[in-house]
């Protein structure tokens, strides 16, 4: 939030007198009028590869364990149904997943 405040202050000042480009800390390559090139490089060398690494990590982790269904114990502090959901039969949450989400009475239909 402080960075936003600083940036907006700088941009407010720029309406008087000379326009001065404010660069954020990472692009401190001097007064680069080519800051867009700096951020382009950051995008393709750091940011997107970072995403790719996390995607790879995900793929590898998915292979290790397939969805184990958590054991059903009828705890009273879970699967609250004080008021029914305003859709369907009122007993299924919006993103209900038969395999992973038990109803108050247990898993529904085919257990796998």
């Amino acid at each position: 939030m402080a960075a936003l405040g600083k940036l907006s202050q700088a941009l407010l000042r720029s309406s008087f007198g000379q326009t001065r480009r404010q660069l954020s800390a990472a692009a401190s390559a001097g007064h680069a009028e080519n800051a867009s090139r700096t951020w382009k490089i950051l995008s393709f060398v750091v940011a997107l590869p970072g995403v790719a690494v996390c995607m790879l990590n995900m793929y590898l982790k998915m292979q290790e364990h397939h969805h184990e269904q958590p054991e059903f114990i009828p705890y009273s502090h879970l699967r609250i149904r004080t008021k029914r959901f305003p859709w369907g039969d009122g007993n299924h949450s919006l993103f209900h997943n038969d395999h992973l989400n038990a109803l108050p009475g247990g898993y529904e239909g085919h257990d796998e």
Partner: protein
Amino acid sequence: MTHQAHAYHMVDPSPWPLTGAVAALLMTSGLAVWFHFHSTTLMALGTVLLLLTMYQWWRDIIREGTFQGHHTPPVQKGLRYGMILFITSEVFFFLGFFWAFYHASLAPTPELGGCWPPTGITTLDPFEVPLLNTAVLLASGVTVTWAHHSIMEGERKQAIHSLTLTILLGFYFTFLQGLEYYDAPFTIADGVYGSTFFVATGFHGLHVIIGSTFLAVCLLRQIRYHFTSEHHFGFEAAAWYWHFVDVVWLFLYISIYWWGS
């Protein structure tokens, strides 16, 4: 022809504030009607009116600023203050949900098993999809900065590419979160854990969708030559909002996904 002796914008009379207020009334009362009487008519009407209001009001602002020249420096300064104040109010909105989360998780009640996560809750692994989501949003912060500098330097093509990349990353986040919601072993009805998790991340997801839409409008405007290298506040506002969304996610990730697991 009349001239004004000041640089401020005296806005013409407009029906959109009224239609917006009516839309808010219909949506909220419609929500109550849906919950109690199972009819979605009022809520649907309110939503349509809201969408029409937003489209027409913002279209008018673009006309006044970009085409009619009403957004002089003092006017732009006012718009900046406005956006900053709005984002600040949104910060407080999220603060409330973080308060709820910490209230419940720092001193878990006996009903939950006296522990956090509560007994019977299988949490999500913070180093799987949530970590990828973090990388996606951080990357989008880099690409939106690239877009800003491209606009300032008059690099039209680069601005379009980087802005498109930012929006795609936003969509990817939303898609991944949707999958996570479906694959979660707990639901919103699973006590205070489910409530705090889905309300906090749910409102965040809504803000990602809003931010992506805002950026998409900026992309359309950039393609149609609305922005100049000196004057592009609509884009800056969208970028500020996007950074805000990213920061909220970081707090969500650290608090709920990581510490709370």
